[in-house]
């Protein structure tokens, strides 16, 4: 019969070894010696206690931990934390640009066909944009950093990829978005659209 494995020695010390394997130890001097040494070391190790601090130590430790916890931010119940938002920001940016690019596609198609863009939703449901956007302030001037994120996200996320991760866009929502774009935003949209078309054709 083979000697006990490391795992079996541990089981033997914990009195969890199969009796047939335990019987081997009785007949094998080598395994018996190893098992005895292991048990002895286990006994000695277990006998070493942590020095008991003074009774006041626990009150002091509790107070110390309480003060430290009081200074810590409260646990978040929502399940969302900043690391998650870090992922969401580029994802939402990409979604926004994809919406914009698709909007541009629809817009150009309707213009090319000689039709005015059709509003599919009632006036009150139209998304609002800030007044400076409506007056033609360039997005680059106002939010250059955000715009950089949007454009860089758009350069790496295609429509199929966006659709695959659940970024579905309703035509009405697209019309909503396009309707309130400023001239500068439309120019930028056109540029994005061209680069997207160029990338698709490659």
């Amino acid at each position, binding site marked *: 019969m083979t000697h006990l494995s490391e795992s079996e020695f541990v089981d033997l010390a914990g009195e969890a070894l199969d009796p047939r394997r335990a019987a081997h130890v009785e007949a094998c001097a080598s395994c018996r010696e190893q098992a005895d040494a292991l048990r002895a070391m286990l006994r000695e190790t277990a006998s070493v206690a942590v020095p008991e601090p003074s009774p006041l130590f626990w009150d002091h430790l509790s107070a110390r931990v309480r003060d430290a916890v009081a200074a*810590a931010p409260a646990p978040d119940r929502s399940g969302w934390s900043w690391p998650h938002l870090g992922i969401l920001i580029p994802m939402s940016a990409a979604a926004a640009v994809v919406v914009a690019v698709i909007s541009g596609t629809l817009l150009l198609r309707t213009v090319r066909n000689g039709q005015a863009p059709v509003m599919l939703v009632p006036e009150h449901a139209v998304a609002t944009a800030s007044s400076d956007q409506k007056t033609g302030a360039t997005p680059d001037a106002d939010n250059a950093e955000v715009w950089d994120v949007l454009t860089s996200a758009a350069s790496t996320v295609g429509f199929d990829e966006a659709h695959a991760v659940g970024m579905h866009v309703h035509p009405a929502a697209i019309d909503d978005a396009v309707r309130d774009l400023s001239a500068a935003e439309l120019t930028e949209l056109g540029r994005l659209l061209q680069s997207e078309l160029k990338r698709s054709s490659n």
Partner: protein
Amino acid sequence: MLTTRAWSWTGEPGYKVTVTNPTDAELVESCLAGRREAFDLLVERHQRHVYQLCYRFVGNREDASDLTQDVFIRAYRGLRKFRGQASLGTWLYRIGVNVCLNRVATKTPRPDALDPLLAASDERIAATEEGADAAVLRSERAGQVRAAIARLPRKQRATLILRVYHELPHEAIAGILGSSVGAVKANFFHALNNLKKLLQEPGMDPGADQ
């Protein structure tokens, strides 16, 4: 250590809610609902075990206190991650082991066995039950065992501490350390063998020089 206590707060709309001997899960819920005092009870309930775990790793009271505080702060900040599949105690052990392993990776433990005041304290306790000489030898040997444990490789040390001193089953240790049960048993086997070798080194056996 307080393990039982009536826990009360004023709920909405102004009713006083009292829970006698709340479970850990109830205290966690209270804490997540914004009642920070509930966490104080959890600290009182678990601080001894967490401190002992940390002490086993670093071997001195000062570092063990620092680490205990760190464990509870991390637990508090990450309380929403506690899902209740394991006991809160096991969850705290998991945090504690990570905190301790990180600490010992960056700082060599300085066991209190070298602290004469603490050794004297051990001797006083032991001397009440046995002769003074035997108590001194026993205390000295205990310090050597602690020092030898502190020299074990990190996973062997964690396994030995959790198995021998906290009596966790191999499966729970495997979960905490992210290992297989087989790896835990192998680490435990090697930890005991290495401990024996370390204690046989010259100067480690108090009887060897006599």
